[in-house]
């Protein structure tokens, strides 16, 4: 269904045998247990790295983060390991999601109509939005690129005696920029997965979403997993004079 766990070997692959997801009537399986486990693993490491990193990033504001990790020296010692934890689990998720996240022409169109998405011009997403929309894909690839930057610059700053003075200074800036982008990203991510788009959070907790959620936010995926064409279904519904909410507010 959703993730590329199927691609890795269908139902018999070990990934698929980790945990079962209860799918109630009217729901669809969105993220299986392995995907959810990875998400929360790198989620924890993300916040550990974020808080410890910002204690060092700007101590005159964030100095109160460092006592959480046992003082400045301990924070400095732990931060690289938090970062590696994040990159390790996110790397597994990147492999898990590689096919779902591939960019298509529909995604470019989605980005062009980003304003419509933000302003809720249409109550449902366009019919070509699949398992992930282009915004999710953009964030995913930003984290992939940012993680590569994190690892390279982080290792340089971790072992300055090997790499020397100027590589450390350059890495310092790149590491900061990557952190600032992800800090901005985490606000959007948390907002859209909780109060911004109600019904989304359960995809990463219980692993399921309602069929209506899928129809609203990911119509092509809805079509793939239910076999129902959302547009045809809507037109059919309109023709049969059933009461249906308007597809568009304008």
């Amino acid at each position: 269904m959703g993730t590329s766990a199927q691609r890795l070997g269908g139902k018999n692959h070990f990934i698929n045998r980790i945990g079962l997801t209860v799918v109630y009537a009217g729901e669809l399986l969105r993220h299986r247990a392995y995907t959810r486990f990875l998400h929360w693993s790198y989620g924890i490491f993300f916040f550990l790295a974020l808080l410890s990193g910002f204690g060092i990033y700007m101590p005159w504001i964030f100095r109160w983060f460092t006592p959480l990790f046992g003082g400045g020296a301990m924070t400095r010692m732990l931060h690289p390991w938090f970062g590696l934890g994040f990159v390790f689990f996110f790397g597994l998720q990147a492999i898990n999601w590689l096919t779902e996240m591939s960019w298509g022409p529909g995604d470019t169109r989605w980005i062009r109509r980003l304003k419509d998405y933000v302003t809720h011009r249409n109550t449902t997403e366009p019919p070509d939005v699949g398992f992930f929309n282009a915004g999710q894909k953009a964030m995913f690839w930003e984290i992939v690129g940012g993680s590569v930057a994190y690892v390279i610059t982080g290792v340089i700053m971790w072992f300055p005696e090997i790499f020397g003075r100027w590589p450390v200074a350059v890495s310092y800036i790149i590491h900061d920029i990557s952190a600032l982008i992800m800090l901005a990203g985490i606000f959007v991510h948390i907002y859209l997965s909780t109060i911004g788009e109600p019904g989304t959070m359960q995809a990463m907790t219980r692993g399921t979403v309602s069929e209506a959620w899928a129809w609203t936010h990911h119509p092509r995926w809805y079509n793939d997993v239910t076999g129902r064409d959302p547009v045809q279904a809507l037109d059919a519904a309109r023709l049969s004079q059933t009461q249906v909410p308007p597809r568009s507010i304008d």
Partner: protein
Amino acid sequence: MSDRKTLQIQRISGHPGSVAGEGTQRQEKLCKLIDTTTCIGCKACEVACVEWNDMPFQPTMFDNTYQTMPDTNWNYWNLIKFNEVSSDDGSFQWLMRKHQCMHCADPGCLAACPADGAIVQYRNGIVDFQEENCIGCQFCVSGCPFNVPKFNPSTKKVYKCTLCSDRVGSGLEPACIKACPTGCLHFGTKDDMLQLAGRRVTQLQQHAGLKDAGIYDPQTIGGTSVVYVLHDATNPEKYGGLPKNPRIPLAFTIWKSWFKPLGLIASMMAFAGVVMHYVTEGPRRVQPQPPVKEIDGGEARKEN
């Protein structure tokens, strides 16, 4: 310092005119002057430094020079660099330079340091590390143009020359100054040392035929509290890595002081943005799906 202020005369009984010495200011900036032209490479300063700072002697490395070891270390803050330099005209110079912390007026280590109170600069110009506050990130190593701070992997802290801040605070000269047998090392106020250095440079130029002799007090970092007299000030690099124009990486100056706070504000705009979105546009609610003919059986199933 407090003594000087409290014991300054304010009024004098039966005294005509103003108080003698009123309004005078004492130069507070200290300075070590190293005259490389009179250094004989005896290493007495190295020994005095190790002894005063109570650091154990360590095995040295022979690399075909008279230099004690290739570079300073976390427990070896003072090293005479022996440089054999051949000039284009076939002449040969054996240049000895006492290498230690330069105590910059604009310290790159201090600018780079993210730990509260790990690096301090005293009013007298001494830049000192407070190891108990050091977090071991080694950004100071990257910030220093002279490769001075040295990391101790076992304590995970960084160490360097203190200009004997403990001795200076008690009115003594640094240990290296006390040990120098040739008078190559001087210690005093910055003004006095620059004056002394200037006289020596004039002497070298006029009587020793060293036209390029000069003072090394690099202004790119606001000057230093350790000043050299060099035979050839036009090319300090040949004294074993003394940069002509030492610079602090922009990462620790403009980036750290300006772009970091601005970047943080820019990132926090995303938070403001989602709050504004929730208030103005509101959440995107799930729309009921079109009616479907076949409805799944009403039982929960398990999938993976």
